């Protein structure tokens, strides 16, 4: 592969409510045994990108823990590797990353020291499969300066949380609106870009010289008529997690056979950190219907239309419906949970009830003493 990868995993988003209090969105658990950054990391690895930088700053603890070894994605070779860049204070700079462009600028030596001609930039919160080589071929064929991977959304869908693009007939992007109130197009940017390394260095340095910090506003929008920016349409599954609703929906999508088949059975695979957990255990009294269950779970109650992440304990006579139970949760006996996301490491007391009503997803954060129960 003639490209290096940059994963922008620094983001926080207050639309994720309590779920992002303690972790970066890139570290949000997905589909039982993955985290959202696994999809981008696996895509990079499967596209034979050997050198990848993950740029992170917000609440990076669980992300750093997840990336503590790069072997799961087959990085960590003598050539290339996985680099995690958190902000560091230097004599010249005492700031956090002030935006995506600034985050790249503060680590520009990574770009300068590399020799690969291209850079693939992706956010860490997308759930998708993509061979970046295809985008790169397209980028070269179009003689583009920047290629933006785009996705068409159905008419009438709400795209106000995305950047919306307008393309002309040869797929050149002629207009770009960031999070428009009223969108004039249903084609959105997925936050995946291909750009020549030298051009990226030049744009980022110009940006920094003018005290501008954001990749989308200060590069894509500003240069849209000066540079040849093209859109590459992605026609396969793509979802990103930026709100509680989209997070819930993305997870629930994995209950569909077609989505599971696409991600888990078709080439190439998605990789994640393997925890050494025993098989899931179904005790007498367990009733499980249409659910995903991860390793290390122990089930004594009823689970329907739900996703149990690793090491969930479901007590006797519990009912879990239409919910997501994140990693290492203990749910005491006789508890009823419906339309909820139960935060990881929670201990939910016996005989309690948590229901998200009126179409709302309730986030349950219950930090009780587990072993005193």
């Amino acid at each position: 592969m003639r490209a290096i990868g940059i994963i922008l995993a620094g983001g926080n988003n207050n639309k994720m409510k309590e779920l992002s209090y303690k972790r970066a969105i890139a570290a949000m658990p997905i589909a039982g045994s993955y985290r959202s950054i696994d999809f981008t990391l696996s895509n990079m690895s499967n596209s034979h990108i050997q050198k990848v930088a993950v740029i992170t700053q917000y609440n990076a603890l669980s992300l750093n823990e997840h990336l503590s070894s790069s072997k799961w994605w087959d990085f960590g070779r003598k050539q290339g590797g996985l680099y995690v860049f958190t902000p560091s204070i230097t004599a010249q700079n005492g700031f956090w990353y002030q935006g995506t462009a600034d985050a790249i600028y503060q680590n520009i030596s990574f770009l300068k020291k590399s020799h690969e001609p291209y850079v693939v930039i992706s956010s860490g919160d997308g759930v998708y499969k993509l061979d970046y080589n295809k985008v790169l071929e397209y980028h070269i064929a179009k003689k583009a300066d920047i290629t933006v991977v785009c996705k068409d959304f159905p008419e009438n869908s709400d795209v106000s949380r995305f950047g919306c693009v307008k393309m002309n007939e040869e797929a050149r992007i002629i207009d770009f609106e960031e999070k428009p109130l009223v969108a004039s197009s249903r084609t959105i940017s997925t936050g995946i870009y291909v750009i020549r390394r030298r051009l990226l260095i030049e744009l980022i340095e110009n940006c920094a010289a003018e005290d501008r910090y954001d990749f989308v506003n200060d590069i894509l929008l500003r240069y849209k008529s000066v540079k040849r920016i093209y859109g590459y349409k992605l026609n396969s599954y793509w979802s990103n997690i930026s709100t509680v609703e989209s997070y819930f929906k993305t997870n629930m999508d994995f209950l569909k056979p077609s989505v599971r088949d696409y991600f888990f059975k078709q080439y190439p695979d998605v990789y994640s950190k393997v925890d050494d957990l025993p098989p899931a255990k179904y005790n007498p009294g367990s009733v499980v219907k249409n659910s995903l269950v991860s390793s290390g779970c122990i089930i004594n109650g009823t689970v329907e239309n739900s996703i149990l992440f690793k090491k969930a304990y479901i007590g006797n006579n519990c009912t879990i419906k239409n919910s997501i139970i994140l990693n290492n949760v203990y749910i005491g006996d006789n508890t009823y949970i419906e339309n909820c996301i139960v935060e990881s490491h929670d201990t939910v007391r016996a005989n309690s009830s948590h229901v998200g009503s009126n179409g709302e997803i309730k986030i349950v954060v219950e930090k009780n003493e587990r072993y005193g129960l």
Partner: protein
Amino acid sequence: MIKKEMIAMLLAGGQGSRLGVLTAKVAKPAVAFGGKYRIIDFPLSNCINSGVDTVGVLTQYQPLRLNAHIGIGIPWDLDRNIGGVTVLPPYERSGNSEWYTGTANAIYQNLDYIDSYNPDYVLILSGDHIYKMDYEVMLDYHKANNANVTIAAMSVPYEEASRFGIVLTDEDNKITEFEEKPEHPRGNLASMGIYIFNWPVLREALIKMSDVSNCDFGKHIIPYCHEKKLRLFAYEFSGYWKDVGTLSSYWEANMELISLIPVFNLYEEFWRIYTKSDILPPQYISDKAHIERSIISEGTEVYGEVYNSVIGAGVTIEEGAVVRDSIIMKNTDIGRNTRIEHAIIAENVRVGNDVSMGFGDERPSKLDAKIYNSGLVTVGENSTIPNGVRIGKNVAISGNTVAEDYMNGVLESGEYIIKAGDAR
């Protein structure tokens, strides 16, 4: 200079012929256990959890699966700059080359490997037992007794004692007598096949006994040390320990994992068991499925019913299928409306639709009544079973079977179909 206080030598070369078709193509230590594990994971995990970071694994019989599983030892953190895991197959030498002819002979042929680590103590393990043991505690005990040899031992029922090496001890647990598989046992403290030797003592014994054919620890080395009036001690172990050398004990040990609070608990944080696991998605349980008292591994999809069973990774149990009291290993498919009772089905097997397995009266196996005897249906790996056939009890099946192999669509109790040439 390289120096390890204690290194382990893990005997993993045996066939384990009493596991029948399960070990036709793989060595016993590589047989799957408890859904996602293989038998060798238990001693390997014990090693790393005990701080023993240098392990020589002696292989001989069908080592392919074992080699692939162990690799460079990453799952057990046994990929080390110095030490780690080393697979030791028999090798050719300029003088007389030979296979490993016995447990002690295998160690004798690897004196150079052990010497290269300059150890004070050598721990001898076998690759076919399910247990959790802290070898460091055993070593402390060995040192405290100023022992030359320490043998881990546990109490067994008297009626079973004649299957084991029995140690008789004085009040300080010093071994006064050792009897290998005695007909009339005078004690019930059985050797578990786990030994700590002072390396100079073992080295000397191995060289002295090198001419003995089929040189074995229980039969030759321990009696030799005993005759020489060395200090032999028994280290009494009272935890869970299971020899999974026969189909029925293998089946039982698996079934013990599914009880409400298993005696051998894999869910404890302390003393994890590690294994090489593929990166797999969670398991999917459909709205038509029903599961009771079972353990199920990653990537498996259940559309049918599962009772009292141990299911490996990547298994598919299709709609209408009912699996009871059975062990189903990795990547096996169970077809629609198939009923399976009391069976052990190895890896990568395809069982067709509408099959009944494990039904009818129990009759002794015509293949080998000593091996196939607890009513279990045993299906070897990479086998195929066609749609619609009926299979009795005490049956062994191996290979790609087709409808013509089943007379009138039935394989009676006690019968067998072995298609893959050397599989027995």
